[in-house]
């Protein structure tokens, strides 16, 4: 996606140890005008990423906007403050679930609770 014309890619993984896919840049990304993000200088070695770091159960630990260098260094790391915990990441592929049928409603003879209470009192 583009933010103010600057290509920003979203990926999921370990923020401090990006793998080669994270660092791979497409030609149009390289050619883009990255300085448009209002920084005082433009360095073509650095590029922007939004990274979602999940736990083993896929719950979100943090979401960060940062710059990576082609060698895997990072800087300008900004963690997006979350107002509420994100439980899971919505799956890209939706698997339709079977319909839910509840058990039959329970209807039973009335229990005379007043008699029971009286019995307890006598004890």
């Amino acid at each position: 996606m583009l933010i103010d014309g600057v290509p920003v890619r979203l990926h999921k993984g370990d923020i401090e140890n990006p793998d080669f896919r994270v660092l791979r840049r497409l030609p149009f990304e390289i050619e883009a005008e990255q300085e448009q993000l209002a920084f005082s200088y433009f360095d073509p070695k650095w590029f922007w990423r939004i990274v979602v770091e999940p736990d083993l159960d896929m719950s979100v630990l943090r979401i960060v906007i940062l710059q990576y260098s082609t060698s895997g260094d990072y800087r300008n790391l900004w963690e997006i403050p979350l107002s509420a915990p994100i439980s899971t990441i919505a799956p890209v592929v939706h698997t339709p679930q079977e319909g839910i049928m509840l058990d039959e409603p329970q209807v039973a003879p009335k229990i005379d609770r007043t008699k029971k209470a009286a019995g307890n009192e006598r004890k």
Partner: protein
Amino acid sequence: MKGNKKPFYGAKLRLSRTFKGFTLAELGEQLTTSRQYLQRLESDQDSPSEDMLLALSEALSVTPGFFFEPLSGEVSEEECHFRKLKTTPSNLRIRALSYGTIFNMLLTYLEKYVDFPEIKMPSIKVRTRDDVERAAEKRRMAWGLRLDAPIKNVTRTLECFGCVITTFEGISEKIDAFSYHRSRPIIVRSLEKGSSSRARFDLAHECGHLVMHNDLEVGNPELEDQANQFAGAFLLPRTAFIHEFPKSVRLNWTELFRLKQRWGVSVQAIIRRAYDLRLLNAVQYRNANVYISRNGWRHGEPPETEPSFENIRVLPAAYEVMQANHSYSVQDIAKDLCIQPSILENFGFIKSNTAF
């Protein structure tokens, strides 16, 4: 009856008359008496003679004792949410309310002998459309329905969490359903319309009123809109619906009917839900509705696409308890309530296969 120690309650005559759908003039004609005389009886200005009392009882399917017990638990218009309040003639509304009042008599009676399911329908205050959406999601989650799967049986779901559902027929198709709170939440639903998908939507709509509009003044059209939105959100949760709604430039009606069969919701309601969630723009929404009208689906969608009819279960189960544990027959119950057994049939109490 003149000379009877107990007073004759005119309100009970009015109740039984409106329950049967008679005007004063029609009942007067049937009993060869004047409308004015019946009006005097109803306003407690006169008491009937013995032969008139017997005639009234027979014509109104009650026993004479019915008129000598005071009216209690009357259901008033101020506590019921009618979907088409403005277009429903008042005589039909009054008749529907009398159904509610007589049903209350039956329910109060049954509650002396039967433990109904625990009520788990807490009130949720809403203001915005997002509040309504969340209220429906909250109910689904609390009731173990998840947000990604259809509800197979809406009737059973509501019954499981303390709602009592009863039915009526023979009034008018102008009244789909109405709901109110008494000792427990009650939904009264018409059997006039044959569509099971719409019946499911009606129940979800009334569930919306019961959850969101307890203690609010009825008759506000905004509340009806909220209840419709609740029904859409309850039956078609947004996350799953957005995933499953067919994504194409032109509407794919085969896919829409497939979606209907999976979720048990009419195509009309699916289209509306898609519009509310901005999956369709105003032009697409209008064109879809024109297409629905041209195919005659507004008055009934293809029967083969309709979900299975849903049986009410709580009332027949209550009767089974009365039979098994107290050896009460329908006649015994009717006698205690001073009504004819035929009236009990109206509520889906006896017929264990009452379905809609």
